[in-house]
């Protein structure tokens, strides 16, 4: 019974959202607002069960870990945001999180997004036994990366054999990259629709297996 009602309600809301394709309507708007309300309600419950209870309330109540009151008080300062006279106090927890997370992330982000990527671009263009399309690919990978970087380099005018030609090749490479992304985007968007149609035809109407 629970599942049947659930499937019917889900189907009703699925169709309500699709009705937007014809024109905007109250059912669509209701769905739009419900999403915000339910996700926030869900957020409150999960935050309590996953964080506040096991990491703050239980350790203080059962093990006397009063030191945890410090982060709790720091967190509570967020509330001051709603009282204009003392709203500046809400900057303290924000500053703590912001500063430390930036510091923690800095060396690792440098390694992951810059150093490793630079390292991977410095590669042998040819090795014995390598098929021609891989050699061509490696050449394009190395020169294409350089050219695209030149395109993004705005401190020099894009003129002359180096900056001019480089940036021109760079934009071609970037366009190919965007084309590949578009090709995949089509697939992604259709996949999402397929998922909902599978739900309607299978779970709701039972027309397909």
């Amino acid at each position, binding site marked *: 019974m629970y599942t049947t009602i659930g499937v019917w309600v889900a189907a009703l809301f699925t169709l309500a959202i699709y009705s937007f394709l014809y024109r905007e309507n109250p059912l669509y708007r209701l769905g739009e607002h419900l999403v915000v309300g339910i996700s*926030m309600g869900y957020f409150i419950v999960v935050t309590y069960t996953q964080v506040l209870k096991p990491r703050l309330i239980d350790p203080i109540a059962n093990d006397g870990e009063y030191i945890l009151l410090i982060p709790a008080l720091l967190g509570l300062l967020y509330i001051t945001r709603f009282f204009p006279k003392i709203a500046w106090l809400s900057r303290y927890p924000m500053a703590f999180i912001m500063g430390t997370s930036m510091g923690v992330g800095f060396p690792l982000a440098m390694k992951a997004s810059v150093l490793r990527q630079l390292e991977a671009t410095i590669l042998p263009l040819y090795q014995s036994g390598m098929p021609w399309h891989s050699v061509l690919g490696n050449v394009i990978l190395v020169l294409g990366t350089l050219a695209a970087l030149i395109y993004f380099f705005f401190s020099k005018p894009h003129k002359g054999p180096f900056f001019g030609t480089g940036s021109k090749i760079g934009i071609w490479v970037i366009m190919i990259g965007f084309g*590949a992304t578009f*090709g995949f985007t089509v697939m992604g968007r259709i996949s999402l629709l397929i998922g909902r149609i599978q739900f309607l035809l299978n779970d709701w109407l039972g027309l397909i297996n």
Partner: protein
Amino acid sequence: MKRTVPLMIVLVGGVLMIIQYFIPHQISQDIFDNYTIWVPIIGAFALILGVGSLSRLHGHKVRNKAPNWPYSLAVLVPMYLLPVFALLLPASVGGGMDPPGVYNFAYMHIQVPIQSTMFSLLAFYIASAAFRAFRAKSLLATLLLLTAVIVMMGQVPIGELLGSWFPKVGLWIIDFPNNAAKRAIGLGVGFGILATQLKIIFGVERNWLGGAGE
């Protein structure tokens, strides 16, 4: 107190955390471990900001009977009732977190279908865009269009049926020219992130302070 202290906290916290990464000592590790235990607790309270802001905005609409105010109830009612059902009420009246409770029902049978259907609307719009906006207007646009078509058809089994080279060329494009473009963009983004992190740590970038109680 209002601006300098938060900026000092950011500076000290940021520099300390960068330094601790390079000091593989037990004390440094203990500080770091405690820090990772504290952070989620602080973060959990940020929820208050979200709940407070939504309550204020929609509460105001309901009180003043603003246009379309009943929709605001669709935000406020589940936001406040779901925690009550999940955490306070017994299963006999639909409470608790497991099915067949109200909490689970709202997520599985209302939230999931609405949200995933909203995303799936994009399939219709991308089809419309393909017909009306995807033109071979210039050399660059043609290059983009051809790549998109090869990659798109290479991703589906029917592409292979049309020409066995479709998936092979599609994969080659992804692994080489696409990687060249994405790496250049990625490096730019990477440097940008690093620069922003340093700017925040050293107080050059202060927008995050906002205007709270100037």
